[in-house]
């Protein structure tokens, strides 16, 4: 299973998307909902998602259990490789699913596009805050309205190969990390002390940017790319150039770690089961502290979020399914099966869950993280940040110049969103 944020930028095959957009726009009717006190548990609920592999198996089992409990309900799971373009085309045309499963960075965007609807008449704020962890509550709240229910959370962390590095040797600060990368490569030619997707990915550089005191964008649309902290982070990232592969993209970093040619990698919970399968004896620990600020590196905490489509016919049933899906027992099951980190407080407190090493380790990293922004302004940032990082990494521009240009481009994009 790939990280959702990455997938957003990678898997786009939609040549016909423009055509379907235009066609979709002529459909035009919007579903209306009738507020109902009791839940009518009959009919079909369609869920569009990006789940794969064992993630999908577990979730399918959970939905099957719901259907067994309420035989009148059919839950249809539809895998969409290009979920964003698909819902953007389908929902305004009065079609598409009842439930959209993605990550919280879409919440603001989808709300502004009027593709998802607020659930305040179905879900109370008290229920939300008493059931789910704080970052999860923040993630599904936009403009003071509830736009979905949280599933599990994820953040990138430091993963190491136990055969290549002792736990006691793991660098604790950013200065040590760079020194380690250099000395490791001297003693192991052709191998790497650490690798990550440093080439041009905004999501993977967030731990440094936020740790150095910079930021991408605030909820009011303020862009932070020319902040000193952001620039310092980019300079730090670029200082790894001499000890990294030529083009350190996600696939390259991932493959090097699987092949045992990299002692450490920065990656998320979705990656570890593959590392196990590749025969890597891995451990997970938190990212180092930033030497100059004394703050921990702060990755984005993404919250997988289930949103209800503006066209959903039976909203109470959709919400009921989501409440079931994110209840204590089912989140425990997801943690046990796939090492996912629960957002449900009761599941987090469960001793069985606490005993899972991967969940404990990624959970510690989540505590240092910053919420993945759910503001629609983040949409305007991915592209300029990615281009700026690439320009700085490849040396086409200095880090300062690259981020100044990215700031200008991002501000322009933010203005054009409105």
């Amino acid at each position, binding site marked *: 299973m790939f990280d959702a944020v990455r997938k957003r930028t990678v898997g786009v095959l939609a040549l016909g998307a423009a055509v379907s957009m235009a066609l979709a726009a002529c459909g035009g009717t919007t579903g209306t909902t009738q507020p109902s006190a009791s839940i009518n548990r009959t009919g079909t609920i369609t869920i569009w998602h990006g789940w794969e592999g064992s993630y999908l198996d577990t979730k399918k089992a959970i939905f099957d259990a719901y259907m067994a409990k309420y035989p009148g309900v059919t839950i249809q799971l539809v895998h969409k490789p290009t979920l964003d373009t698909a819902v953007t085309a389908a929902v305004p045309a009065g079609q598409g699913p009842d439930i959209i499963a993605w990550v919280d960075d879409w919440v603001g965007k989808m709300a502004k596009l*009027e593709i998802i609807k607020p659930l305040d008449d179905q879900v109370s704020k008290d229920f939300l805050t008493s059931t789910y962890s704080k970052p999860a509550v923040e993630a599904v709240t936009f403009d003071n309205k509830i736009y979905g229910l949280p599933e599990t959370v994820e953040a990138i962390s430091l993963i190491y190969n136990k055969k290549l590095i002792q736990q006691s040797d793991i660098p604790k600060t950013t200065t040590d990390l760079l020194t380690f990368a250099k000395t490791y490569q001297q003693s192991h030619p052709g191998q790497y002390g650490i690798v990550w997707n440093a080439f041009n990915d905004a999501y993977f550089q967030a731990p440094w940017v936020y740790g150095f005191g910079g930021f991408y964008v605030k909820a009011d649309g303020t862009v932070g790319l020319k902040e000193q902290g952001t620039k310092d982070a980019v300079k730090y990232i670029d200082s790894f150039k001499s000890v990294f592969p030529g*083009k350190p993209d996600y696939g*390259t970093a991932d493959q090097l770690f699987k092949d045992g040619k990299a002692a450490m990698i920065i990656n998320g919970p979705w990656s570890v089961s593959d590392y196990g399968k590749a025969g890597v004896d891995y451990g997970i620990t938190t990212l180092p502290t930033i030497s100059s600020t004394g703050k921990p590196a702060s990755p984005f905490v993404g919250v997988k979020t289930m949103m209800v489509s503006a066209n959903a016919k039976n909203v109470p049933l959709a919400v009921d399914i989501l409440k079931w899906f994110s209840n204590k027992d089912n989140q425990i099951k997801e943690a046990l099966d796939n090492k996912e980190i629960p957002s449900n407080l009761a599941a987090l407190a469960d001793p069985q869950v606490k005993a899972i090493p991967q969940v404990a380790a990624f959970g510690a990293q989540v505590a240092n993280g910053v919420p993945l922004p759910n503001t629609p302004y983040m949409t305007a940032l*991915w*592209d300029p940040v990615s281009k700026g990082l690439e320009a700085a990494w490849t040396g*086409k521009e200095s880090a300062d110049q690259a981020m100044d240009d990215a700031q200008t481009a991002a501000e322009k994009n933010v203005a*054009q969103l409105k």
Partner: protein
Amino acid sequence: MNRVPARTILAYFAPMLVGITLISLFPIVYNVYVSLTNRSLFHFRHFQFIGLANYATLFSSLNGDFFIVLFKSFLFVGICIPLFLLFGMLTALAVNHPLTRWKAFWRVSLIVPWAVPSYITAFIWKFFFNEQFGTLNQLVRVVFGPKAGLPWLSDPTWAFGSIVIANTWMSYPFFMVVFLGALQSIPLELLEAAAIDGANAWQRFWRVTLPLLRPAILPAAVLSAILTFQVLNTGYLITQGGPFTSALKPGATEFVMIYAFRQAFQLFRFGYIAAFAVVMFALLFAVTMFSLRFTRLVEEEAR
């Protein structure tokens, strides 16, 4: 002779007319309408008419993107089409040569790149070009040692060339098929007569074969140029429009459709990109009309 009433003719035409209106005409008209609105992320389902503001943004000197992207696309077409012609011609001549054996086998295997869905081919080439594990750099390392490697996708010029290579690979078979058909229609007597008159192989090709192929070459080249101008799959899947040298400039392989796709579906600038599409349509329409007229002139001259 039975006269068919106009109403009957219209009834027979109706299904096709309805189809064309719905599938082709309506989206065009709708696109023109969207280009006059402020449709964007914050005004997606409720948008307003704003006149020609999007066109003003497009042409304003501040937005250098438009002209850079356009120039890159024309350059891409200008390099690709001659390569398509060259490789299409070489393979067609080789397959058509009387000494070539297993013609059917060669015909089929040479057309494979064209028959495979383009996104699969794009991913295969993306792997070939990978700098760490890719086939091409592995070959380079065998010859030049373990530290060698070419920046297939990370250097702007190389990346442009890489897309040209991948695109040529998947497009030349179309020309091969066209040329093969045309070659087989050339009477052997003409070539024999030329040979008897003392023309060597090169002269026979240049003076007899090529002029007779011209009616086939021109329409194929025009059609292919329009398709190449609008390339999306190949470029987007291999480079996403990159490499990028600054956040303020379009990427090295950001051709018109890739630019439109990024702007429309990553930044949700629907109104702006609809205006962009209208201008592209006008441009391609003009180029097509010009080339059709040019083709006709050439054909008349040939007669």
